[in-house]
């Protein structure tokens, strides 16, 4: 008996030990021989995005043998990444490149830590102009949009055909469709996470804007109306707040009909869904689709870094923003291809043949909305506005009260009264 166990354990180990070569190891070997190593600190913990980025780095390094090499280093999640960059800035050992949200860029610019990218990007003319605009500060370009996701409408195609409902195109049509199916099924079918992202969809498509003459306003009439719509939806039984985990982790508990969620979750939605999962551009107006919140980071280049490393960094930026690399990256991860020419690439064409739904993500990227790029936004988004939305949806405060309180906190934060 004991012998058998030992034998089994040994067999198991032998099987585990026969490894394939990992991208990480290939990069390490490539960089040992390279005269210049440019580090890229990123916030991909794992999964397809990290694998795709590492595979791209391997290709880049192959093309640049003897000249330079790029080494991606995972620093945990995005929040861990920005903590580490702050620490590294103070200690003076910054990498050549890093991922950064727009509000991170605003913060790093306060310390004058970044190099403008103007005039150094080959493919600038082909890049999605909305995304490029979002990384311009004082007329200068400080980031290369990289892994960008956009909100889309996810829906249960099987459920819609069962009730003879078409995919809604307008905001009113969306509410009507959700109401109709919810009444027939006897439970709410629009699932949402009560957070700033879901709220942003309703807010932006009710003509809301956060910045009024450069001042952050979270309790505008449009804001109150957007939050009231969600709260009313819960009361009327067509909207269901999901408070634990991602929406796709709750499949199987009740009837799922719609959600307005980031395209970055597409592969996880697909994986969890047994029903026919569809995606569509967001419901908006009769003329055009709704605006979707853009999330995801940009690649930045730091100023106080060796010029040789910066040169490699710029080469890498040109490589990853090229049509072929973007087509591969988009097909692998589900992020929006930031290079508009990527759709003509065979790789992306093949991917679209297999996954026709991906065209939706590309179309939705033309109706992109951004949150304010100010250094404090991260804190406002999670700790102030996000809190207010959750409170209102869970019925702890009325939408107006919750947003007024949030506005007060935002003003205190921006004037330095609280931290």
């Amino acid at each position, binding site marked *: 008996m004991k012998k058998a166990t030992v034998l089994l354990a040994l067999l198991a180990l032998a099987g585990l030990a026969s490894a394939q070569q990992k991208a990480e190891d290939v990069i390490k070997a490539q960089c040992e021989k390279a005269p210049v190593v440019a*580090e890229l600190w990123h916030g991909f913990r794992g999964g397809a995005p990290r694998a795709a980025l590492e595979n791209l780095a391997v290709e880049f390094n192959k093309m640049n043998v003897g000249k330079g090499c790029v080494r991606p280093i995972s620093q945990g999640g995005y929040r861990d990444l920005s903590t580490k960059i702050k620490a590294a800035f103070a200690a003076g050992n910054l990498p050549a490149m890093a991922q950064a949200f727009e509000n991170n860029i605003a913060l790093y610019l306060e310390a004058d830590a970044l190099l403008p990218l103007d005039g150094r990007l080959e493919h600038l003319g082909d890049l999605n102009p909305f995304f490029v605009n979002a990384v311009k500060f004082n007329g200068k370009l400080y980031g290369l949009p990289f892994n960008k996701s956009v909100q889309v409408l996810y829906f249960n195609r099987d459920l819609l055909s069962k009730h003879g409902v078409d995919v809604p195109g307008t905001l009113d049509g969306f509410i009507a469709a959700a109401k109709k199916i919810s009444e027939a099924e006897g439970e709410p079918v629009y699932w949402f996470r009560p957070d700033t992202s879901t709220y942003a969809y309703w807010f932006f498509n009710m003509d809301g804007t956060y910045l009024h003459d450069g001042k952050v306003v979270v309790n505008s009439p449009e804001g109150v109306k957007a939050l009231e719509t969600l709260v009313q939806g819960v009361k009327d039984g067509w909207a269901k707040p999901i408070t634990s985990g991602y929406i796709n982790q709750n499949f199987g508990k009740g009837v799922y009909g719609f959600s307005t969620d980031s395209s970055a979750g597409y592969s996880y939605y697909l994986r969890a869904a047994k029903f026919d999962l569809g995606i569509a551009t967001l419901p908006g107006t009769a003329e055009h689709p709704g605006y979707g919140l853009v999330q995801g980071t940009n690649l930045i280049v730091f100023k106080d870094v060796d010029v040789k490393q910066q040169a490699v960094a710029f080469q890498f930026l040109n490589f990853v923003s090229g049509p072929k690399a973007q087509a591969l990256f988009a097909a692998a991860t589900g992020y929006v291809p930031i290079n508009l020419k990527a759709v003509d690439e065979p790789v992306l064409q093949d991917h679209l043949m297999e996954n026709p739904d991906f065209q939706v993500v590309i179309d939705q990227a033309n109706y992109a909305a951004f949150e304010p790029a100010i250094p404090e936004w991260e804190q406002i988004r999670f700790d102030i506005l996000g809190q207010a939305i959750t409170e209102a949806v869970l019925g702890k405060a009325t939408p107006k009260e919750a947003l007024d309180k949030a506005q007060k906190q935002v003003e205190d934060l921006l004037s330095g009264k609280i931290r």
Partner: protein
Amino acid sequence: MNTRLRHLLGRVIIYALLSAGAVVMAFPFYWMIATSVKSPQEAQQAAPIWFPERIQPANWRTAWRLGAQGDRPWWGGFAPGRTVTLRLRVEDPDAGPLRARVPKPPAVFSDPRSESTRIRIEAANGGWEIVLENTGTQRFTTLPLVVWIPKDAGKFRAELPPDAVRSQRGFWRLEWVNVTPGLFGYLFHNYREAWHAAPFARYFFVSFFTAGTQVLGGLLIATMAAFAFARIRFPGREAVFLLFVATMMIPGEVLLIPNYILLAKLDWLDTFYALIVPWLASVFGLFLLRQFFLSLPQDLFDAARIDGASYWGMLWRIAFPLAVPGLVTYGIFAFLGAYNALLWPLIVTQSPEMRTIQVGLQAFIGEAGSDYGQLMAASTMAILPIVLGYFFAQRHFIQGIARSGIK
């Protein structure tokens, strides 16, 4: 008779309660292990799946056969020249043919596996045979497959249960992560993938070395300091001690950036020094051991002094042996703290060679979802040494935790 019955009844109730408690305590472990052998779709279902497909012996036979066809019956694989046949039964084979494809890994410029696999689909009695042939010269560890079955074909049953089934317009889309698994390759798929997803052997070494050194070094420093505070009189002793204890009130996060800068100035980043040295002096250990030394009778030390012992002698020959339970308590806490640390190793290290097991577990957490099967497989691997350690040192563990009065 009556008393015996009552006694028996009491026993039954006690055992029932204890068993219920044991089940409740063991449940998370069962869940972790069960999830570690689930396919991605199984792992993501909200309705719990108690017995995943991969632990059902009926499927093992097929896994064994497919593995043997591909290369090896235990661990599978897909060797050059080999042909693998996967059978699929459908209710109505006339509904139209299947489609099958070998999917490509993310963002590769070329993929030898899908390019050198020839797929033929043949009608067989009551269904279809998918014949996969390796026409290349390379051996592959796994062979993923996607198959589309027209919905009109009615009910279907694949010889090896697919890892995911989805509705896609007029088709059912079936996905296998590996159709040449072999028995172990099937059962331990997530373990193998997880093990290869990151250099776990190195992570284990770093974690154990870091935690072990922290415990030994920490014990040495804490013992000497605690003895001084407990048994040696010197001016300002209470004040200095108070100052030390006060540092316990500063949250670790606040010290993160200053500590990082200090380490950067010392050029210690991404080395074992950064992982170990800042945690060697533990105020918790100091406090715990000081209380321990204070509880020892003064007479012992007086007697030692009369016999001519120095402070050094009193520490190592009298206080130290008597304080073993306290040392074990501190050792366990220090070890678990170091082994479970995440943020600190993440911040002060760069290279995969210097990262710990807890940082490694992050590889399975995505931006918009997690790979629970692999995450749980890796968690099982990470927790195994601690569980084994617990079996060997059970007595100390229980006493240690009970003694410190905190969890």
